[in-house]
């Protein structure tokens, strides 16, 4: 798959970012895209939180990873003196490396890649004992739509609080969704698992769109061409890790390039509006 970027990206260590992109492990596809496009060797970017800048079509994006998405279900941020700061130590450390401050600066445009990390939910062992009503099977207790929705909304809780705080203090930002489920995820080995993963993923996206729409927050979804006819991420966009455990959730550089295109388009729109 070729890059869909309009022009060649350049590394811009000194350029002022037009947007700051932060989030969980799903940043990997964008960082791989950046490194692949620049021909730069892959560094140990996963853990170090080092800021990466990338200029595409005259738009400079700064990237850094907060840390694991595991903590996103719980509150990981708070408002201090009118600014949003991260209370999770790991997130806080990485964030300081990115921005130089412990706060989410209201001076910047932010993109947060921390919604729809839905494998966190559908991979739970509890789904062997419980199932959404329409997927109920012998041995699994049915859960109503409202109960499943409550579970999904609880999964969104920490990020919702974070976004509410950002809105409250006037930070301009948009949200970036994680890719759809992958067919090679262990959950998707059975028909029930595939149905469950797609159902929970769709429900989560619907709920996020509803919630973000009510608050006027833009969400950047995986481009339609990244999704196959059933709703899974297209196989050629899988990130393949050469170490164990295998990666069964993330997109690769090609996916990242397509996502960055969407992001830069949005950032340019915001810049023009400003």
């Amino acid at each position: 798959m070729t890059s869909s970027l309009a022009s060649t990206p350049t590394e811009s260590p000194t350029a002022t970012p037009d947007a700051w992109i932060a989030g969980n492990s799903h940043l990997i596809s964008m960082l791989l895209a950046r490194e692949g496009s620049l021909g730069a060797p892959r560094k140990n970017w996963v853990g170090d939180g080092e800021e990466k800048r990338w200029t595409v079509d005259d738009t400079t994006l700064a990237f850094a990873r907060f840390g694991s998405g595991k903590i996103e279900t719980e509150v990981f941020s708070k408002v201090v003196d009118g600014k949003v700061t991260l209370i999770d130590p790991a997130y806080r450390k990485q964030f300081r490396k990115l921005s130089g401050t412990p706060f989410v600066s209201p001076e910047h445009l932010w993109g947060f890649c921390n919604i729809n990390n839905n494998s966190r939910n559908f991979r739970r062992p509890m789904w062997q004992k419980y199932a959404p009503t329409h997927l109920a099977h012998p041995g699994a207790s049915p859960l109503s739509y409202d109960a499943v929705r409550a579970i999904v909304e609880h999964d969104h809780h920490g990020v919702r609080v974070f976004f509410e705080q950002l809105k409250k203090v006037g930070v301009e930002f948009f949200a970036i969704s994680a890719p759809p489920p992958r067919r090679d995820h262990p959950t998707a080995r059975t028909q029930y698992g595939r149905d469950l993963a797609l159902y929970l993923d769709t429900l989560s996206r619907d709920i996020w769109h509803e919630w973000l729409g009510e608050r006027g927050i833009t969400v950047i979804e995986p481009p339609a061409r990244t999704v196959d006819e059933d709703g899974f991420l297209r196989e050629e966009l899988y990130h393949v890790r050469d170490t164990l455990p295998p990666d069964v959730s993330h997109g690769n550089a090609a996916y990242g390039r397509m996502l960055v295109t969407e992001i830069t388009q949005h950032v340019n729109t915001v810049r023009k509006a400003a």
Partner: protein
Amino acid sequence: MHPYEDLPSRAFWKQAVAQRNAMELADVYVPRFEISRTTRITAAGSCFAQHIGKQFKKRGYRFMDVEPAPVALPEEQHNKFGFGMYSARYGNIYSARQLVQTFARARGEHTPVDEYWTDGERFYDPYRPSIEPRGYSSLEELRIHRDAHLRAVSSLLAQTDLFVFTFGLTEAWENLEDGTIYPTCPGTVHGDFDETRHRFVNFRFRQVLEDFESFIAYARSINPAMRFLITVSPVPLTATASGNHVLPATVASKSILRAVCSELHDTYDFVDYFPSYELVSSHPMRALAYEPNLRSVSAAGVAQVMDVFFSAHGDAGKPEPVREADKAVAPTMPEQTADDVVCDELILEAFGR
């Protein structure tokens, strides 16, 4: 010499009650049999019974729950969907007749003619109207949930050594055609009231007794060693449909239930009675355990009552923590109840004029 000379102080009102702090009565409850942490305990009853179940769980007893909440459902949502209230998601069971019918439905021996309520868009289970507050999207979904629930209930008694039941009400509403008891009056929480199909019943002493004895017989046919712990809810009627003033209606109802408990206790050596009703609602307590609405039992009141129970069983573990809000005298909303207990009949307050 006469029989009163050798009686312990607990037998004398002056020493046992009048000269004591009402919240510190001694030996008010002497257990008839041991309840250990290996005893498999099942609970059902009116909303006050939720306190008992929660205390068993908090203190590490083997409380049975055949329909536990999924781990990913946040705890604050459990009550909303009827999880963790009792040993199954049957919601509040206010009367012995409703209890008997619940287990008869579970074993397929009673199929109510009134299968569902609908408002044209959503479908509601008439026998668990509060378990899914928004109801179900279709009759098919209702049936899937109902059948799964009844399967779970049918497995419960075989896993039970001690069945805890709190008698709540004598007043109920029944289906005229087949006598099925509704936990709430049709038309209040959901459904529509139809006087040609629904009628008010106020169970008499003999009916309550026979119903519970029939439940005992069935339960012990499953587990011949099953024991029973019975209580009466101290929560007054929210409203009465008897035509009487709600105060004498409450006293009449509770008196019947209390008398049934004594009859059962005196008849069967495997039945114990715990006087939570007396510990909350009798006049020496001066309504101290009630919220300002004189109906809801405060968390402090529940803690005191449950401490008496577990102390009598030799368990001096931590009592239910009392929230700061409950220590204050500030009035609370009348619909609030201690520890987020779910009381379906509270909706009747909304109809008061």
